[in-house]
């Protein structure tokens, strides 16, 4: 059946939670009502990337980008665009501060500057149809390796491409495969690490939701290269849609004979099982994940031998991240030379980042390595909302660091980020504006890490607890002279005495904020002052009588009844009753509520 128009409706977790399923029903209903069901095809796809504008519909072949859709928009959209050929301007994307909408996806700056390798099929194919993946060169790389390459050649190709692990540490993928291939065993494992646990990170989830077959193909190629016939996708159970899609994809691949015994009658066996993790942060670490799959408490163990020699069930095991595996088929198809021409000297290819926090275009981006933070935050991310100033960007999740404005022109690659005290990590990027208190941010992430610490090592378990206590004290105005030095000393102990990477990197965020925002810490401790106006114990809300227009809006909205004053006279806040919730400041139209 041919259709003249494909309505590509984003069905990622974000859009579904914003009502994409109801929109799909309404859209299909409106199409039927107009008798267009044989002309217009509604195609559910994975995330388009500009998640903050969801639900999103891209109409092809024209490439019209519709955003922030509502159920009631659908009949109008179908009548105007699908029936009469007049794209609906009011539903298009208008950049902040601009008046004219940008109709087509290829002209929107957010999409224009990106380069898609791991996300090559996002928004283009229906992830539930294997045929559409095949149409875009899907499983071609698997056939290529099985029919015309030896495992050694595959490993060499990946080594030559310069591909490094996209999950955090950046270990060269080809060398990992080579090591596993060199160890002989009756069974070997390929594990796909989809246990994405960093707050604000959703790269892996989006790749699986948009293009599950790319991961399965990457795993099968890895299996052929190292001589493994068993694959496991370790995915957190909080990702129900991703689990559903990859399980369905694996079944389709099995039906076609692209997974299972004797793949495509070419004499290679490989199959995949899905293992659902219960969502502990520590399970993303290799030895903890192994313990979890083996039914043991998820705690890291000392790595006297590499997992590529003795990993899961003491068998040679390759653990690769989702994004790494999704990139593999493209390298096989297009060649190591092509791939290594993208990026920098030591960091090849592209990287997927999830942009979150105080940024206009929150969402998912894939960019060439070596791009500057400024390009990501301003050109693609659209800058900081409300014309606020940029303060810091946190890269690499809770194990990464916070980099201030002076690093905006830093090229994003493994080495540069590490040199600045942060890390690439799995690609979470949280952007913070001038109203962010760095002490409070540190406290938040240390609280997360303290909660997620498995408790095996004293340094991590008790060290992070103590650190949290000291940071809380600083936020509550109970900090003491010498606390900062103690935090630094404690950080050193946690780094050297913890067994796993998660413990060793846990103090990164505190250390970088101490390095770049020490004044702010000192203001909390020495002056009992929170310069950003965030820490409640250190701030007071006041109403500026000069600016107050006596509209009484704050008076009515205050949940404590702490604001009083006569009509037509400036209002005042009773400090004893005030809980510093900030409602008065948010509702005031005259900026009369000040924070000190």
């Amino acid at each position: 059946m041919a259709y003249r128009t494909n309505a590509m409706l984003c069905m990622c977790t974000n859009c579904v939670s914003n009502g994409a399923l109801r929109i799909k029903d309404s859209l299909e209903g409106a199409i039927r009502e107009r008798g267009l069901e044989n002309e217009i095809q509604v195609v559910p796809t994975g995330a388009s990337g500009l998640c903050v504008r969801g639900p999103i519909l891209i109409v092809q072949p024209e490439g019209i980008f519709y955003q922030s859709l509502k159920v009631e928009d659908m009949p109008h959209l179908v009548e105007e665009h699908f029936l009469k050929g007049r794209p609906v301007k009011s539903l298009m994307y208008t950049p902040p501060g601009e008046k004219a909408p940008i109709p087509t996806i290829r002209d929107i700056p957010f999409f224009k500057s990106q380069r898609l390798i791991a996300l090559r099929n996002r928004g283009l194919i229906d992830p539930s149809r294997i045929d559409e993946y095949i149409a875009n060169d899907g499983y071609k790389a698997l056939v290529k390796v099985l029919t015309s390459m030896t495992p050694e050649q595959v490993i060499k190709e990946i080594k030559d491409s310069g591909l490094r692990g996209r999950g955090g540490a950046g270990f060269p993928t080809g060398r990992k495969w080579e090591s596993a291939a060199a160890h002989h065993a009756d069974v070997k494992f390929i594990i796909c690490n989809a246990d994405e646990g960093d707050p604000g990170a959703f790269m892996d989830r989006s790749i699986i939701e948009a293009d599950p077959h790319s991961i399965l193909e990457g795993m099968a190629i890895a299996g052929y290269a190292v001589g493994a016939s068993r694959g496991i996708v370790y995915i957190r159970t909080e990702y129900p849609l991703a689990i559903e899609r990859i399980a369905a994809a694996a079944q389709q691949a099995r039906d076609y004979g692209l997974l299972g015994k004797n793949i495509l009658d070419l004499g290679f066996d490989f199959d995949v099982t899905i293992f659902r993790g219960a969502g502990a942060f520590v399970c993303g670490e290799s030895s903890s994940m192994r313990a979890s799959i083996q039914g043991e408490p998820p705690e890291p163990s000392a790595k006297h031998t590499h997992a590529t020699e003795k990993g899961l069930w003491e068998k040679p095991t390759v653990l690769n991240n989702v994004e790494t595996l999704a990139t593999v088929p493209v390298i096989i198809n297009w060649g190591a030379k092509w791939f290594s021409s993208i990026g920098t000297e030591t960091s090849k290819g592209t990287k997927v980042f999830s942009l979150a926090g105080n940024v206009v275009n929150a969402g998912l981006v894939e960019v060439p390595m070596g791009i500057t933070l400024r390009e990501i935050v301003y050109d693609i991310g659209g800058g900081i909302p409300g014309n606020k100033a940029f303060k810091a960007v946190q890269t690499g999740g809770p194990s990464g660091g916070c980099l201030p404005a002076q690093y905006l022109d830093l090229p994003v690659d493994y080495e540069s980020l590490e040199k600045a005290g942060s890390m690439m990590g799995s690609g979470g990027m949280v952007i913070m504006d001038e109203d962010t208190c760095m002490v409070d941010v540190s406290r938040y992430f240390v609280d997360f890490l303290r909660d997620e610490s498995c408790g095996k090592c004293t340094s991590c378990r008790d060290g992070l607890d103590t650190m949290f206590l000291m940071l809380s004290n600083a936020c509550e105005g109970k900090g003491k002279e010498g606390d900062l030095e103690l935090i630094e000393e404690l950080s050193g102990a946690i780094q050297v005495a913890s067994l796993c990477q998660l413990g060793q990197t846990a103090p990164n965020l505190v250390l970088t904020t101490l390095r770049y925002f020490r004044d702010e810490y000192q203001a909390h401790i020495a002056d009992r002052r929170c310069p950003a106006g965030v820490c409640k114990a250190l701030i007071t809300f006041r109403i500026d009588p000069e600016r107050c227009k006596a509209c009484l809006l704050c008076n009515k909205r205050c949940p404590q009844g702490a604001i009083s004053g006569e009509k037509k006279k400036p209002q005042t806040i009773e400090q004893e009753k005030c809980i510093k919730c900030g409602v008065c400041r948010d509702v005031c139209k005259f900026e009369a509520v000040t924070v000190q």
Partner: protein
Amino acid sequence: MARITAQDLDRIGEEAKSRIHLRQGIARGRILVHMGTCGIAAGARAVMMALIREVETRHLGDIALVTSSCAGLCSREPMITVELKDQPPVKYVNLTADKVKDIVEKHILGGEIAAEHALSVGSERVL
């Protein structure tokens, strides 16, 4: 779904490609069906359906079918504009399902303008 071989993979890919590559902007050309109120009243829907059938049966997956608004010559509707890559657009008027079949055969497949149905070559200058 039955087990497939490496050769089947190419066939499946080609079949699916004709369905999806318009989504990726890979088009040799496009046919605009003018679907203003005038066009629809004069039978543009039947013209569109005929074009969809032609694209399907003749495997013209690289030709985009696009609806467009009134072309300004309401008395000669239904109208289409054929835009092939690197060629000036051609407007056809007073169409029926049979006539568009003829146009697809001569113009899209044969590369010759179907002069008997054509109104003009070229479009208005915009701005």
